[in-house]
């Protein structure tokens, strides 16, 4: 069996383990989905949207809801491992650190995906924007990969401190600004088409590739103990 196949099997067995433990016990994704829905509703009241300013403003609310929910939920990426002391055992397994990182990232993407399946239709409904479609799915996936990558690596970094809950947003928000700008602009262009706009989905994909690569490279240094 090639090393690629082994890594592939290891990847999905870690993802499967995380999903099982999530489904059996913690239900963080329920809280995340509810939280992002709540943020959308709060912004709906905060902005006093009308027909003419809804297009440019509403996508910002959607992406802030995603970023907030991610920081809230994905900070727990390594929490259960640390609470039960199973991180050491996971690290003792003959598994590449990159595989562990990618597995955690895929798990987080699945959680965020569930949140978005709830939040995006709600967003389209309460903001009354007919933007559901293939283009929106592509933008949401591209933006989510960037957010989830940063949250995964910095969940590990923040858990080296005693103040994980407050450190994670402080670390992640400034670094995520390019992703938020790109995602919001791309979503806006679905509502109100802009001429001469840079190719935001392509730029988002480039940001994602840079973030995933560098995070996978440095992850091994965060978790070794």
């Amino acid at each position, binding site marked *: 069996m090639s090393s690629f196949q082994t890594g592939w099997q290891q990847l999905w067995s870690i993802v499967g383990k995380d999903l099982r433990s999530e489904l059996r016990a913690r239900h963080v994704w329920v809280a995340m989905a509810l939280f992002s829905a709540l943020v959308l509703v709060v912004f709906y009241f905060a902005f006093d949207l009308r027909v003419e300013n809804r297009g440019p403003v509403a996508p910002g609310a959607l992406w802030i809801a995603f970023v907030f929910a991610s920081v809230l939920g994905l900070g727990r990426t390594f929490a259960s491992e640390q609470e039960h002391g199973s991180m050491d055992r996971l690290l003792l397994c003959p598994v590449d650190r990159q595989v562990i990182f990618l597995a955690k990232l895929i798990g987080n993407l699945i959680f965020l995906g569930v949140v978005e399946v709830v939040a995006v239709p709600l967003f389209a409904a309460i903001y009354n924007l007919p933007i559901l479609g293939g283009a929106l799915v592509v933008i949401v996936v591209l933006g989510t990969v960037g957010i989830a990558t940063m949250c995964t*690596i*910095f969940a*590990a*970094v*923040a858990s*080296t*401190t*005693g*103040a994980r809950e407050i*450190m994670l947003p*402080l*670390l992640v*928000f*400034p*670094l995520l*600004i*390019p992703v938020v*700008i*790109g995602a919001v*602009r791309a979503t806006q262009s679905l509502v109100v088409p802009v001429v*001469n*706009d*840079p190719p935001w989905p392509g*730029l988002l994909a480039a*940001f994602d590739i*840079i*973030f995933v690569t*560098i*995070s996978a490279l*440095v992850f091994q*240094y*965060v978790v*070794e*103990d």
Partner: protein
Amino acid sequence: MKTLTSHPAAPDEGIALHPQRGGWLQPIRQYGEYVLGGLTALGMMLTIWAAFLYAPTDAVQGDVQRIMYFHVPMAWLAYLSFFIVFVASIVYLLRRDSRWDWAARASAEIGVVFTTLVLISGSIWGKAFWGTWWDGEPRLTTTLVLWFIYVAYLLLRFYGGRTEGSARGAAVLGIIGFVDVPIVHFAVTWWRGLHPDGYVLQGTSSNMPMPAFLALMLALVTFTLLYAFLMLQLYRLERYTTEAQRLRAIVEYGDDGDISAS
């Protein structure tokens, strides 16, 4: 699991904080710092003279332009600091030598101080020239994001304490943060669309008269000397703090200084 960062293999550490070493470097070790400090002080006085008296008043901006003789060198110093954090973080992760960690930490502190000063001086200049304290100008916005990244870095170090795990986490932020800076700049440049008045500052430096150019160069050299001087002080402070914590741990927890042993 949590041990203090002091690295047993590093030859520089130990109880003796002033190792007397011979060789041709000895005079530099002993007096270099005073020479550096003296040159910095002298350069600062010359810079103040050059910025306010020697350099001509700008035809378009008037006296407000003189803030550039401090603003530009401080911005250079901020970016230099974070570049040093980036390099020191990489070397620390590869070599696990605490000295690189101290260097990264010291440089980040200097960088945050000067980024703060850049933002303040930039705002003052903006108020005088644009009429507003803040503008969506890409470089200004990038610098603000930069400030947030490295304040978070210092907070991470503060909450993490002087453990090896915290040092590694901070090194990871030192690397990702610096790689993120050009991406942020790129994104905020495109965010507003490329408007031409975004590059007002460049127009002032492109056709600069010779005295103004010389004053700016003098300021750049002086601030670089200041960086080196501050680095020496903060690096030593880091080293002594770590050493003091190790000694305290020895007194409190037993002879190997391992906190987790108790």
